[in-house]
């Protein structure tokens, strides 16, 4: 470990970088949808309780363990955890802190490239004059990598590689000249753009610029409390989940950033500033943009329907159309501001995701920043291209589920056990308060030891055994039907339907209805079956359709024959590649550990002097 030790240039730079890590697309696209679907204004109660009992304690844990590892000479999660407890298992648990960042960054950088592309398209006026359907179709075309909207072939891939290259370049410039500098530019601009859009949303008037309702109708809808929803465990779990993901907990990035602190640098005020900055971006700005503006044009019922498909739909399919109603100048400014805000929030987060692997290669192999940053870019491209090329096959969803959801909860659960029970909450409390600019209420010591670990275990168990349709009234000692999206349900491919083999010579219908359309769109062939729900099935020109227009179809009926690769193949290969990635890092950690021990045999003995 003979490279010069990096440190943050200023306290403001550190806090803005940490805030940038936390503030992401979810603040603006996920939170408002969660609030609308989970009790409106009443959601703020479980949300703020989760912030106090889960969010803030985990921030203290991650900041303090990160700083501890940094003082011991390590900046990457595996060796940070190993420096806290000498049992060998901890460095392998730390592998999750590298794995989850790589797997998430693989698809996150892709979404970031969408925002970059949409800034460009907003600026050149692509959405001017397009209808709502055409704007939505633009998004589908963009995701179809064979399609080009600007004449650039494989446009989505070009933007993706450019975005990734930007991340690599910034990471290679180091902490102060790269990450910190970007944070100091992007975070203030993000807040400025957010305030501009908030003002537009508040001042939206029915009858002006094509708006049907006042912007206040949307605010009213989002913030009107439905207190009876508080009796539903689903709402509390949604709140805890939102806090967890919005603060970027359980990933290892916070530990990595905090490891560049000095031993007596404050972390209490710093971490609280970061946490509340994230909450400002979420509760103040995030709640004030997509929902009020969308309701101003579409009304409540339609927005509820659109929101059920997630925030991406509203953000990328609807808002560009709505902004274009504001005229050439204001429409351009709004589009650039909104997608620029999303881009800034995205890039500050993806830089944080790249930091643990860069630090790991330095810790274990003495690689310099430039080489490590290039390695990050290469691994992301390798794992990210399948999410680009096979987006519609479920690869993206698998990465998001296993790396972006499950592994985060598991890692957070283990790190709080390490902090509160293995290291011990007394030592942990001293660690938090080293150099602190304020004393925490002792209540947090009790929360760290008992409440936060219990909440995390409950969150994990609820994800493992989620009841069908999130209906917690089913849960009883007699057992219950699992939801397809529960961890066990996912592992067992529950609900996969009749096309459950990797390869087949026939494709079977997955819904009941009537064949009402056989059509071609963007050079792809589709067959649509419409019943209670409508489902379009893509087939190749080499396949033989065995049904005709108007045929009645039951689930399991053959629709077309030929050489068929089912989505379950892509799903299983994605899962296997994630397992391979995790095992690969475990092996790398072992080799890195041997390298470190060769240089300094005693480096991993527990240093009680830090307490």
């Amino acid at each position, binding site marked *: 470990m003979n490279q010069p030790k990096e440190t943050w240039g200023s306290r403001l730079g550190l806090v803005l970088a940490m805030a940038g890590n936390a503030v992401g697309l979810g603040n603006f696209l996920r939170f408002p949808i969660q609030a609308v679907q989970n009790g409106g204004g009443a959601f703020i109660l479980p949300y703020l309780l989760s912030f106090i009992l889960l969010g803030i304690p985990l921030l203290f844990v991650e900041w303090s363990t990160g700083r501890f590892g940094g003082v011991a000479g390590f900046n990457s999660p595996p060796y940070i955890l190993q420096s806290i407890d000498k049992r060998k298992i901890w460095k392998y648990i730390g592998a999750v802190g590298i794995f989850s960042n790589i797997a998430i960054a693989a698809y996150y950088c892709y979404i970031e490239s969408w925002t970059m592309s949409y800034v460009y398209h907003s600026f050149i006026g692509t959405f001017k004059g397009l209808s709502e359907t055409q704007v939505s179709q633009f998004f589908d075309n963009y995701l179809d990598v064979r399609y080009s909207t600007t004449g650039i072939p494989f446009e989505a891939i070009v933007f993706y590689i450019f975005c990734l290259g930007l991340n690599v370049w910034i990471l290679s410039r180091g902490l102060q000249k790269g990450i910190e500098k970007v944070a100091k530019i992007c975070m203030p601009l993000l807040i400025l753009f957010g305030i501009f859009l908030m003002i537009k949303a508040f001042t939206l008037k029915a009858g002006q610029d094509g708006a049907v309702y006042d912007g206040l109708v949307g605010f009213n809808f989002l913030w009107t409390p439905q207190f009876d929803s508080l009796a539903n465990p689903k709402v509390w779990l949604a709140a805890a989940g939102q806090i967890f993901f919005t603060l970027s907990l359980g990933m290892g990035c916070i530990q990595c950033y905090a490891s560049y602190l000095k031993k007596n640098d404050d972390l209490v005020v710093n971490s609280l*500033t970061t946490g509340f900055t994230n909450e400002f971006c979420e509760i103040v700005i995030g709640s004030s943009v997509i929902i009020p503006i969308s309701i101003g044009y579409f009304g409540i019922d339609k927005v509820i329907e659109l929101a059920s498909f997630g925030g991406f739909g509203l953000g990328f399919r609807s808002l560009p159309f709505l902004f274009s109603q504001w005229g050439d100048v204001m429409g351009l400014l709004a589009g650039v501001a909104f997608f620029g805000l999303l881009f800034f929030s995205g890039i500050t987060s993806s830089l944080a995701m790249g930091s643990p692997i860069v630090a790991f290669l330095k810790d274990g192999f003495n690689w310099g920043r430039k080489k490590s940053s290039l390695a990050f870019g290469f691994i992301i491209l390798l794992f990210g291209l399948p999410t680009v090329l096979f987006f519609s096959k479920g690869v993206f969803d698998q990465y998001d589920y296993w790396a972006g959801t499950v592994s985060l909860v598991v890692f957070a659960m283990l790190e709080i056990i390490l902090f509160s029970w293995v290291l011990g909450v007394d030592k942990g409390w001293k660690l938090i308060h080293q150099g602190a600019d304020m004393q925490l209420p002792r209540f947090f010591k009790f929360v760290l030891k008992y409440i936060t670990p219990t909440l995390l275990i409950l969150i994990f168990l609820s994800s493992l055994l989620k009841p069908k349709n999130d209906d917690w009234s089913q849960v009883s000692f007699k057992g219950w039907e699992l939801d397809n999206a529960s961890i066990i349900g996912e592992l067992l491919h529950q609900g996969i339907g009749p096309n459950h083999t990797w390869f087949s010579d026939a494709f079977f219908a997955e819904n009941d209805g009537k064949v009402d359309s056989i059509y071609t769109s963007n050079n792809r062939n589709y067959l649509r079956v419409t019943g209670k729900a409508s489902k379009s099935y893509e087939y190749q020109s080499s396949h033989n359709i065995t049904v005709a227009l108007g045929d009645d179809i039951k689930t399991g009926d053959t629709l077309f024959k030929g050489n068929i690769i089912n989505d379950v193949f892509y799903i299983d290969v994605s899962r296997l590649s994630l397992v391979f990635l995790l095992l690969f890092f475990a092996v790398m950690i072992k080799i890195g550990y041997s390298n470190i021990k060769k240089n300094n045999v005693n480096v991993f003995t527990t240093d009680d002097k830090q307490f």
Partner: protein
Amino acid sequence: MNTSALLIMLSAQLSVTAITVYFFYRMLKPKKKNA
């Protein structure tokens, strides 16, 4: 806007803003040097 929605929105947004500004102030305030 109905009263309950307005109250909840204002109290949540204003308190988060105030606390954020407070912590930024504390963070940026120069530390007193011990004699």
